[in-house]
Each structure stands twice: as C-alpha cells, then as structure tokens.
C-alpha cells in the first residue's frame, strides 16, 4: 500500500501529507493484529473534512477542532468540535453530510457545546470481506 502515491496523485501540500501520515500511523497502531487495514478513501475523507473544519473555525472564538481516529470502535473515527456557538455554512454542511455518518451534539457543563462527527468504515477487512 502506498500512501505517498495516493497523496502525490492529489497534489497534496506538505502540511496535508504530514497530517495524513500522522493519521495513518495512528490508525495502523490502533488496528493491531485485528485483520483490518485502513480504508484509505475514508481516511483521506476524514483528513480533508477535519482540515476544512479547522480552517473554518480557526477565526471563531472559543472553537477548537480535534480529529481522532479509531475511537470508540475499530471501525469508527470521529472529529470533535467544541465551542460556544458552532455554526456551519451551507457549503461546509454539505461537505460534512456527504462523508459523515452521524452527528452527535452534547451540551457541556462549562457552557460549551460539543459536536462530534462520526465516520464509519474507517477500516476494511484485509481480504475484502468479513
């Protein structure tokens, strides 16, 4: 599997490549000997949407974006957004809805709201079937 080739085809920036490699390493580490391998298409989607969110919310006071893969289950990754008022533009919402499977919204005791975007099929079985 060549993640470099995958990224180079896309003309990704150095920052994107670095972030992608970090996410991939984390995924592989969590994968262990389960027989699953990272689903490159979904991991790439997770990276792109998390970067888009980080860029979008970087100027919004009190909002932070934290991307985590392989939690809470082996096949599910999630992106957390925590802030006072979290607003998605139509364009961003369309992107989110296209690749995210579930949105969970939780009020926090500190007055923030946490929006978690869950993505399934982050992993695929090595032989293509389960």
């Amino acid at each position, binding site marked *: 599997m060549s993640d470099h080739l995958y990224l180079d085809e896309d003309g990704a920036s150095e920052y994107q490549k670095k972030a992608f490699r970090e996410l991939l390493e984390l995924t592989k580490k969590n994968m262990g000997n389960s027989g699953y391998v990272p689903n490159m298409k979904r991991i790439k989607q997770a990276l792109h949407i998390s970067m888009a969110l980080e860029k979008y919310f970087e100027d919004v006071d009190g909002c932070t974006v934290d991307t985590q893969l392989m939690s809470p289950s082996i096949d599910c990754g999630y992106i957390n957004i925590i802030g*006072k*008022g*979290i*607003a*998605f*533009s*139509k364009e961003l*919402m*369309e992107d*989110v*809805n296209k690749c*995210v*499977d*579930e*949105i*969970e*919204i*939780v*009020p*926090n*005791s500190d*007055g*923030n*709201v946490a*929006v978690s975007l869950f993505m399934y099929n982050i992993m695929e079985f090595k032989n293509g079937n389960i």
Partner: protein
Amino acid sequence: MGIFENILKDINEPVSQKDEDYLRSMCDLAGRFANELDCEEVKYRGNIADGEVNLYIILLGCIDVIIQTSDKTYLQMCTLADKVSFINLPDEYDESNSNLVMVFSKEIA
C-alpha cells in the same frame, strides 16, 4: 396554533412571500425532524436579525442528540437553510445542561 403560525407570531413583522414560503417549509420539516429526536420537550421560536430569518428548535431535556446525516428530513432542512448552528443555553436558563438549540438561518429574501 401550528408551528408556522407560532413562528410568524414570534417574528411579529411583515415577511416577504419568499421568506414565508421558506418558513412554512422549514416548520413542516422541523416538526417531523424534532419528533424523531430523543428529548422531553421541543419548542420552536423564530426571529429576524442581522439580515437573516432564523428558526430555533429548542430541545429540552436531552442528554445529547444524535442525527443520522442520511436522514432525509435533516438533509432537506440543511438544503433549505444557509447556515446551521448549535448552541448550548446559558446556565441561568439551563442548570442541568441538558438543553440544546439548533438554529437554521437563511438570508432574508
């Protein structure tokens, strides 16, 4: 009185036919959407502010809200609105931190 009539009463100022049509569609969808969510009570409010017409769906007594992004009603609402926001009510209104507000906003036509 239905959701739409309540929202118009809330706004309490003339709205264009386009905005009225938008609100009518959104209210219809909001009722269906909120019915599926796991919370004790749902309230709806509306206003016009900063050049936007806003529909507030206030979810009372929910620990959290889970939305399937493939849900047709939700997708229709996102398509109609220009912006979707999630707000936690301030402590003075929500000591239990179990109430959430979803806001669907659209620029005034």
